[in-house]
């Protein structure tokens, strides 16, 4: 090592075999960088990927929903729905584009946030034919990531009538489907009950294909 910094003190310590040396800092720094880049930056993530692929291949590859060999989406990514025959997801600040995901980042005191929520509430009430006061907050606020795949069971319930009418089926059938697709709090105590919008809409399409009306 050509560059040596610092001082070197050797001594004969009592009861210890160590000596103090501050030499070789540059070589050490370069060596440590190599260890970090290769070991921590390459080998560690590759091991994590290998273990994930071996043990949980479905989730490791993005929880994709496939039908007839075609990828329809991921149960962890919300898709936009406009047709009245489908449940609506939460509004997205990113237009449901996962490459641009974001929240609105608007403060609670921001007048623009209030205006947007009021408008969304009025629109949802009109679309679903319900009173504005019963529209739950999660259905008219934008999520943190912009691709929240879930809505609350209440948000699904307010849409049940409209979906039933648009599909020409009974409200009971839609409510039964909501109940079947409601995930309870995990392990009975974590998080909130929720309905996966993409999954329930795909179930609607599968069950009621025959009554489907093309727009």
């Amino acid at each position, binding site marked *: 090592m050509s560059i040596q910094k610092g001082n070197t003190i050797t001594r004969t310590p*009592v009861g210890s075999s160590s000596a103090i040396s*501050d030499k070789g800092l540059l070589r050490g720094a370069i060596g440590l960088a190599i260890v970090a880049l290769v070991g921590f930056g390459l080998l560690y993530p590759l091991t994590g990927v290998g273990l994930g692929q071996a043990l949980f291949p479905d989730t*490791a590859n993005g929880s994709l929903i496939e039908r007839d060999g075609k990828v*329809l989406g991921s149960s962890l990514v919300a898709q936009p729905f406009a047709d009245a025959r489908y449940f609506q997801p939460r509004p997205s600040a990113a237009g449901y584009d996962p490459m641009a995901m974001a929240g609105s980042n608007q*403060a609670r005191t921001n007048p623009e946030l209030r205006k947007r929520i009021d408008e969304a509430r009025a629109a949802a009430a009109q679309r679903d034919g319900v009173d504005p006061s019963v529209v739950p907050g999660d259905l008219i606020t934008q999520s943190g990531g912009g691709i929240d795949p879930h809505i609350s069971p209440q948000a699904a319930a307010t849409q049940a009538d409209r979906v039933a009418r648009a599909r020409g089926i009974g409200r009971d059938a839609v409510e039964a489907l909501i109940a079947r697709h409601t995930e309870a709090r995990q392990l009975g105590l974590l998080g909130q009950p929720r309905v996966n919008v993409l999954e329930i809409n795909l179930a609607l399409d599968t069950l009621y294909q025959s009554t489907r009306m093309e727009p």
Partner: protein
Amino acid sequence: MSEFLLVFALAVGLGWPLGRYLAAVMRGAPMRGDGLFLPLERPLYALIGTKPERGMSWRGYAGAFLLSNLVLAIVVWLMLMSQAWLPLNPNGAPNMSWDLALHTMVSFLTNTNQQHYSGQAQLSYLSHMMGIVTLQVITPMMGLALAVATLRGLFGGRDAQARQADGQDRMPVDVGNYWADVIRPALRFMLPLCLLWSVLLTSQGVPATLAGGPTVAPVDATVEMKEQKIPLGPVSPMVAIKQLGTNGGGWYGPNSAVPLENPTPLSNLLETLALILVPVSVAFMVGPLTGRRRFAALVFGTMLTMSVASAGFAVWSEANSSTSRDIALMEGKEVRFGAEPSALWAALTTQTSNGSVNAMHDSLAPLTGLVAIGDMLINAIWGGIGCGLQQFVVYLLLGVFLAGLMTGRTPELFGRKIEAPEVKLLAVLVLLQPLILLGLTAITLSAPGLTGNSNPGFHAISQVFYEYTSAFANNGSGFEGLGDATVWWNVSCAVVLALGRYPALVIPLAIAAMLARKRQAPESTGSLQIETPTFALTLIAVIVTLTLLQFMPVLVLGPVADHLALAAR
């Protein structure tokens, strides 16, 4: 309440054995696991050119720390600016501009995760792994090394007994071997824990693949969007280390609010626990490492008290106060979590200098935002791995100094006097924070062209102050509405990030080494008793008073006024 209680119970229950294990790792004596790890470590020491038992002076130790940062800085900066030409870039991320690459590099080099970019679109897989993950693993280990070296100094150095025996007071104090102090905990502690978390998170739905993500057509063909790209990648290993290593830098822009990064309430529990697990373990490590259980109890008790108080206030503000009945409650939050886990996360991520988020902080209730800012200003409620302990030592020395003045006794710590040179160095650290935070906040607010706020009114003040506070605390969370991908924000934040890390890590080590060279007086009944509940309360009072004295005006103008405006609606 279940998340709140579970996270604290698990962190304390698991932190205890992990802390004991970590102490054994840092002590360097023969231990279980040597058979597995020594053969791995020996070639690394050979590459570095050191022997783990060889000691270093504090100057050599700090020099090794700074130089190894410089080398990594250059490599990662170049990598980010040339990633488009490098392999493992299936999503076609372009090269970063010099200022964005500089800010990103400094941010992760200082174990922060201030991100003025969106990872899924602007970083290649290679940059994510060898750029970001490399720094996410090694920087907390560097912080831990500095903290352990400082502790060794406070108790007279690794060679304390030998020095007392031969009476050679002018020798440099042996504070440990930097290289071994970084490598041992990384291999024996951090990486095994991270691999476990990575697999557990993948079981819940966090992707772990090298393939590029698929592009799908929306199921409802009537919508405007014609195709949707689902970004994947080796996400899970990165999420594991960003949560456990108090870094916080996520794969996706909105961090752990994204369902791909935090898919279920259980993954959220695991990630929330990971926020504080290692910082709590480091606090538990103090006892076995120093052999002073009462001192460790002081550290742990003080931190736990402040942690529970701050997290409890955040949860109350978000989920139980009058603002929790706001129709906008779920703005920026995810349905699968709800209000309470979001507030708990916001408190813990700012206590531990982590900075990851599972809800958008801009849209939290203003008082929850106040808790987040307060946690970052204190930055020693657990704190970042190692950094938290360093900052705690600063508060401890200040507390001893002030208590000494109040009781009319010579301030001393573990039998060594705290005198003018040490207090001057402390004053530098204490003054740096308000000078930088308030100064830059004032400059930025006075030039509206620079700020790029997404919100009007009092919250705009909070946004700018939050950004600099987060940078200085090496936290990384943000009131993200700020349009911060500009040269001004990139460069000013890069400077603040560096000033928030290096002096805070190196100066306490210097002070500890200065103390170690002083003659140790036996602790008598006349000395100030610091290992008592009374002193713990004094210390908390010192911390809170100091923070309020410096930052009360800006906190009133920002989050407090914001809260009053919301309450008056």
